[in-house]
């Protein structure tokens, strides 16, 4: 294998994301746009828009900080306050950030990350961390909070009951929003946005579908970068972006343009992503002509996994709250092991012509880490593919050692029989 730097030909229009995202974050400072809610975890953003409440996602914000390697300061503040180094590193970054804001130390925070203080906090229990994290934020800022619980679907026959469980809490949330904005909830706007999401999902899925091509016109990392507007912004401009994204991917597919000059190995990624090492990992893989094609993380929201939803294509336009509830019930977090093996591995491995699998076992995230050893064994046995369980972290730099990771990735690729 050669050592020279390989060119990674990324999807071009994703460069527009930072503009979209920056605008989104700029809006946070516009008081005319309603109160501000900090949302922990995946959240029903449609509802916030319909209530005229500004919101952003704390995980997303933490990931943004760590893609630029600027997380250490916030982690240190949180740990100094007494938060254990073993808790989710997203939470550490965000809680450190919140503590600095609450103490009036905003001037120490790089300007591009600054945000106004929240008027309320929201969390949805996809992972228990989020609830505790939400409680902490509400305690730090002394503002009201709303928590939605989502159940563990240990029995697929219980789908409906669980969707109803979430949906009834979402009704309460509507009342909560009305109370705190002093305005009636705009149901018509909610319908509009859910419809918008459906259109976005169509573009998204079509683009993702094309990644089954060899060579792949877009990588998993392109998709990870592109998911921002879909997961957090959700407005008309986002739809326009996904149309561009789909078009560009389609054009590349037509012209046979791949992400790498020579696509030798197609890799699947499972688990959340070490954002701070996005570039490093992409270069490391490219060096050996390997590309991440597909993955289970982040792409899910109204996206790849719609076929697993209780609703035929993920949407019930006549009942937006049911759509939202179902969307949140069908995440990986709430599902059984067998379900994950089938939907997260089999489908990706078979449809995307995968040569090897990297499973991320983050040191500070229980939901993504547990069962990964068993998953690795089953993939090896069932699909006869080489698997690497990478034990690093989604944002904490303490667990990632470039040289060590590269050795392991190289070893993985060497075992691919081609």
């Amino acid at each position, binding site marked *: 294998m050669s050592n020279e730097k390989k060119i990674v030909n990324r999807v071009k229009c994703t460069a527009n994301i930072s503009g979209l995202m920056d605008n989104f974050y700029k809006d946070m400072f516009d008081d005319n746009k309603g109160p501000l809610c900090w949302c922990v975890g995946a959240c029903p953003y449609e509802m916030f828009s319909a209530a005229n409440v500004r919101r952003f996602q704390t995980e997303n914000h933490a990931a943004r900080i760590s893609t630029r390697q600027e997380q250490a300061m916030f982690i240190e503040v949180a740990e100094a306050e007494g938060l254990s180094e073993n808790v989710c590193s997203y939470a550490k970054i965000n809680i450190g950030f919140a503590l600095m804001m609450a103490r009036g130390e905003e001037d120490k925070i790089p300007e591009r990350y600054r945000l106004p203080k929240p008027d309320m906090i929201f969390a949805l229990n996809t992972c228990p961390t989020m*609830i505790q994290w939400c409680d902490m934020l*509400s305690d730090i800022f002394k503002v009201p909070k709303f928590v939605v619980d989502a159940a563990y679907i240990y029995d697929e026959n219980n789908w409906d*009951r669980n969707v109803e469980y979430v949906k009834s809490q979402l009704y309460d949330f509507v009342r909560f929003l009305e109370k705190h904005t002093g305005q009636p909830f705009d149901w018509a706007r909610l319908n509009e946005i859910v419809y918008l999401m459906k259109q976005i999902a169509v573009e998204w899925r079509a683009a993702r579908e094309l990644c089954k091509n060899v060579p792949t016109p877009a990588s998993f990392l392109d998709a990870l970068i592109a998911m921002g507007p879909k997961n957090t912004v959700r407005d008309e401009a986002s739809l326009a972006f996904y149309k561009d994204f789909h078009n560009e991917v389609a054009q590349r597919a037509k012209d046979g343009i791949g992400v790498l000059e020579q696509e030798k190995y197609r890799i699947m990624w499972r688990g959340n992503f070490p954002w701070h090492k996005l570039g490093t990992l992409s270069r490391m893989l490219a060096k050996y002509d390997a590309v991440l094609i597909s993955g289970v993380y982040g792409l899910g929201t109204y996206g790849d996994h719609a076929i697993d939803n209780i609703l035929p294509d993920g949407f019930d336009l006549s009942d937006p709250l049911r759509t939202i509830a179902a969307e949140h019930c069908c995440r990986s977090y709430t599902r059984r092991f067998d379900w994950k093996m089938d939907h997260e591995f089999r489908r990706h491995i078979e449809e995307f012509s995968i040569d090897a699998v990297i499973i991320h076992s983050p040191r500070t995230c229980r939901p993504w880490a547990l069962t990964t050893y*068993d998953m690795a064994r089953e993939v090896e046995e069932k699909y006869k593919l080489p698997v690497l369980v990478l034990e690093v972290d989604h944002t904490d730099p303490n667990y990632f050692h470039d040289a060590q990771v590269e050795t392991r990735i190289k070893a993985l690729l060497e075992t691919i029989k081609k």
Partner: protein
Amino acid sequence: MEQLLNKFQQIAAEPLKTAQYWKEKTGKKVVGCMGLYVTEEIFHAAGLLPVVILEKDSPILRAQAHVQSYMCGYIRSVTDQALAGDLDFIDCIISHDCCHTIRMTTEIIKRNATGIKDIQPIFLPVTIKKAESWTYTLQELSFLIEKAEKLAARSITEDDLMQSIQTYNKHRRLLKRLYQLRRDKPGIISARQVSNIVKASMLMPKEEHNAMLEPLLEAMENKTVEANNKIPVIVSGSLCETCDEYVLDILEEVGGVVVDDDLYVGSRYFATEVDESLSPLTALALAYVNMVPPCPTRHDPDNKLSDYLINMAERARAKGIISVIVKFCEAHYYSYLTFRRGIKEFNIPEYLIETEHEGVSPAQVKTRLQSFIESIRG
């Protein structure tokens, strides 16, 4: 009194043997309760023998291939026991999804521990004080009743349930009296002994346990303790995990005396009584959503750990609060921090000890606890 205490100690020393002994002696099927808040009364009412699955103080070997070292010791140990076949005698394990760690471990055990007869997950709402949570809880408990009926091959009547609730409530009241005696006469019983008593209760029929408790309490009523200058403290935490007794031993060895606790193998196990004036199922569901001790794994914003422990400390005239966290028990880390922020204004010394299955250096724990006691003494 010594004799009774020894008996409790023996029962607590070998949890699995104890459970097996009772299985043979009563001929009843055994239900293993994994995680917090499995409603034991339901299984008791069906004539089954519910026992709590505890952490075992032996090295983790087999589970290493399935569960990362950065997971709490409780689930690593339980997985290990399951893989070793130690839990095969249990007729059904009910695993309550009290955190994500347990959720996934249940799956791991199910896949890999081939000798396990039956392992059934349940989900109880995390946000406990909401209308939906109440209905959801009722549904889960009804499901447990069905499950118990199937296991026992008989039906459970309302009377059966009520009788079990009464037995359990009586048990809770006896344990509360034990704690009252300890508050009144600090040092009358060691923290380790109290832990043994509660642990034994988790492993044997409550009727039998009650029968042992009653004479013990009587003996304690009549006993006096010499005045001493030990520092009274309360201990809180240690979710699901049980191998922390050495912390209690050291604490009392270096001049502290535990006067009350909020431990899993402690008052958390019996703090919530079930209302006997309601229909039994309603009462059981209510007891869950209205649980008394604030729980790090549940969302119940009005029930603050700081208030709860400050009250406990005041009632027991304690001069310090020790929190014990099981390493990697994520929910507890947050709740500890919120607690610490919450008690700042009260000016009561507090200290955190983190425990690990593999054990932390006893010398270091001793230095920490001794320094803590020395600093209270001034």
